[in-house]
């Protein structure tokens, strides 16, 4: 089918797109599906559903996600921008809906019920946020020259200025913080910081930024009781650390080579199919295979990095860099809680964890990155 001599649109797409990244993603998704079946069946039986409960629920998402990934990777820049704006618009709308009619799951008002699905607006807004921010930074650079931060013109009231950007994303950020969803707000903030850092943020500001994160952290520590509890219990090793202890026990149980498919500490590991899936993988396949998975995740990061470095268009550079920042940060937060390196914070492992809207959002983001990288390289 895919021969270089052939001249079809599909063939040219295949040879122009970043194939290595695509294949790495395919492997990640495959690992995710495998674990969906293994850990998901255990989790379903734990809460009294038939073993295929989560698997059947996840199937349509895998289907939609894969189609999204492939279709998005065939678009051009104009379409990518259009879809991103749509994505941001829908995301903001749904965020407003969470204020008015929240669908509360496990005490958090961060979900919206769309038909049979529970969607997390802050999750599905990620691709649009990255692409639009990248586009914005690139356009600003083009118009105001190298320095866009201490530039008076960039701070005047007009369409293409910081004010527009802030007007769009500050409310979103505040709504997410109000949910309360401390983890996602930190994620967004970290990704945005990373992107403006790439865009040439004067180094003087960096300590200010770090100080700001520190302040927000302190604020959360002293006002949000669950943040307080988690950090205290991480420091002292007491209190309600059941999930984390189970997670570590799970990895230990797996040993280096894995304990096979039969014995599960993961049977009592909460969220074995979502936030703590890495622990479940480590238990089934062992620490060595888990490290191979880490290497695969790092390879995805490296591909994004290389794509950014080779880009001609600053927009593509920022977009790929931003995607790398998002992917990396999310993986890091997830693994920090799973491996008990810092206070636990619920966050899905991209492409692997069960979590419908998050999976589709990541597919859309990577599809769009593949598309703009391809266009930038070959047109």
């Amino acid at each position: 089918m895919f021969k270089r001599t052939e001249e079809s649109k599909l063939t040219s797409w295949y040879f122009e797109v970043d194939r290595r990244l695509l294949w790495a993603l395919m492997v990640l998704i495959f690992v995710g599906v495998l674990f969906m079946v293994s850990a998901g069946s255990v989790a379903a039986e734990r809460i009294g559903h038939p073993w295929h409960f989560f698997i059947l629920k996840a199937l349509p998402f895998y289907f939609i996600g894969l189609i999204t990934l492939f279709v998005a990777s065939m678009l051009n820049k104009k379409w990518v921008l259009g879809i991103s704006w749509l994505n941001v618009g829908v995301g903001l709308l749904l965020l407003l809906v969470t204020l008015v009619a929240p669908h509360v799951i496990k005490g958090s008002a961060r979900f919206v019920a769309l038909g049979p699905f529970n969607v997390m607006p802050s999750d599905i807004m990620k691709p649009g946020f990255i692409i639009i921010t990248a586009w914005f930074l690139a356009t600003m650079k083009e118009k105001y020259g190298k320095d866009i931060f201490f530039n008076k013109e960039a701070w005047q009231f007009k369409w293409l200025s910081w004010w527009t950007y802030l007007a769009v994303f500050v409310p979103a950020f505040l709504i997410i913080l109000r949910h309360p969803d401390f983890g996602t707000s930190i994620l967004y903030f970290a990704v945005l910081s990373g992107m403006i850092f790439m865009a040439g943020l004067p180094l003087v500001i960096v300590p200010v930024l770090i100080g700001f994160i520190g302040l927000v952290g302190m604020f959360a520590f002293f006002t949000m009781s669950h943040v307080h509890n988690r950090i205290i219990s991480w420091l002292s090793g007491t209190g309600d650390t059941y999930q984390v202890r189970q997670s570590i026990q799970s990895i230990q149980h797996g040993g280096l080579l894995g304990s096979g498919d039969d014995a599960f500490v993961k049977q009592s590991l909460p969220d074995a199919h979502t936030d703590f899936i890495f622990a479940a993988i480590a238990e089934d396949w062992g620490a060595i295979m888990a490290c191979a998975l880490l290497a695969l995740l790092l390879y995805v990061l490296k591909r994004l990095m290389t794509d950014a470095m080779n880009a001609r268009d600053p927009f593509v550079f920022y977009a790929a860099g931003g995607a790398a920042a998002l992917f990396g940060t999310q993986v890091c937060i997830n693994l920090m809680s799973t491996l008990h390196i810092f206070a636990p914070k619920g966050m899905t492992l991209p492409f692997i964890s069960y979590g419908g809207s998050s999976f589709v959002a990541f597919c859309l983001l990577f599809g769009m990155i593949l598309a703009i990288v391809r266009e930038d390289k070959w047109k």
Partner: protein
Amino acid sequence: MFEVGKDIFKRGFKGFVADATARGRLRFIYSLFIIAFLIFTVRTLWLGIQGTDRSRLAGADAEWTAKRADIIDRNGDILAKNIMSGHITLRPQAVKDRDKVAATIHQALPYQYSLADALKLVNSSRKFVYLKKYASDAQRNIIAQAKLQGLEIEPVQTRRYPKRRLFSHVIGFVGNDGHGLEGAERVYDDYLSENQDPLQLSLDARIQSVFYEQLSFAMQKYQAKAAMGLLMNSRTGEMIAMVSLPDFDPENISLDPAANRMFKPLRGVFEMGSIFKVFNTAMAMENGINKEYYIAEPFKIPDKFGRTAAKIGDVRSFKPPRPNLTVEEIMLHSCNAGSAQIALDLPDGTQKEFFHRIHLDESLKLEFGTTERPLMPAKWGPVEKATLSFGHGISVTPMHLLLAVNSMTNGGIYIYPTLLKRNVGVVKGERVLSDEISARLRAIMLRIAEETSGKKARIAGIQIGGKTATAEKYVNGKVDHKRNLTAFAGIFPVAAPQYTILVILDEPKGTKDSFGLRTAAWNAVPTAGKILDSILPLLFE
């Protein structure tokens, strides 16, 4: 969309060379991620290496299972207890003496594994097998004495509830992490997880079982949707029995529908009906109303234009002895038309203030949980006043009602209940009613139990007082005569009450014995009577 790049050589592959800082900074971020991934890798491998040493893990298992104090009732009967148990595990690859291990497995679990099965398992390529979860003492002893490598016991603790369903709502249950999720297990979680001494509750398992038996029987006999029974010490506030049916099995949570887990006495609100006449009469006495009301015809409430806004009548079975009744007689015969007239004679705001005084208008923060919020009327006009007088238009939880009735009859002191055994006598409460009015109410309640609707609760040996209620339910905004909530609130001994009892049946049906009648006198009252008959020897031994 699928445009093939035609002029890739015109502009070259790499174009974005201008911004060196940006590239440098991206590289910097990337290196931060690499460091983080290195840490993750090291940590994962380290945990993996730790895990290969299983003896360490086995020790850690026991340590990680929270020890938890027992729960006992007021007589020391065990209601909840942690039991040490263990899973029998097999690691085929660590086994040295295969035949002996297989033989031991067969010896310990003869029905589950034949010798051939056991051998097959021992020779299999699996790394880890749970041979038997929660193995019995005898089975574990065999394994422990054999001391074979690869065949081990993983200690676990489980929470057992020897009384099973009897205390399902009150005691609750614990989650996978060993922390209480419902009932006393949740409320006293801190005490239970930090102490070794058992937690003694005010409940009495013997009395609870009487309630349980009679309520289950009543629920079956009258085909009721739900049944509730509460018994409280009128002076100390100790809860002696709390039963809510349908219930669940605390040791097998998924067995019953999740809706059964709702503890209705605290979490369900109902229109309680005529028991509210106790409060209405108390208000009339406080305001010195002392006249006779004409009740032979339904009472018409006029609106501001002089038209009839509502007609308050009585049930067909109501046969007044005389056309005019006093305040006492209105409560005695449970007359709606009379109660409505009393309510309209009360000064404005009396009802509201009185209901606030006996905490009927707020959710109660009790020692063993917070009650649901009562549903109060949106506006407080003449019609609402009239219906509130006989307990319609306001929905409260059974616990609200029990505490309010208790405060009316125990001498006028509102006492908050407790689930813990109290040793000293009377506790301090709030005075909500004068002693004298309380005594007059008790006198009426005694006559109710002796002469009118409460007759079937009368028992030999002790004088009881009570008030019955039959509330018709609203279904889709219309009164449904066939769906009732029937209740009996009783006090005994009536001269100086020591206990207050509340029995509620939700939607009982008529039976042959009751000639198809569904009112409280035919179901809730006889049920309460049977309960009282059985528990008296236990209470006053």
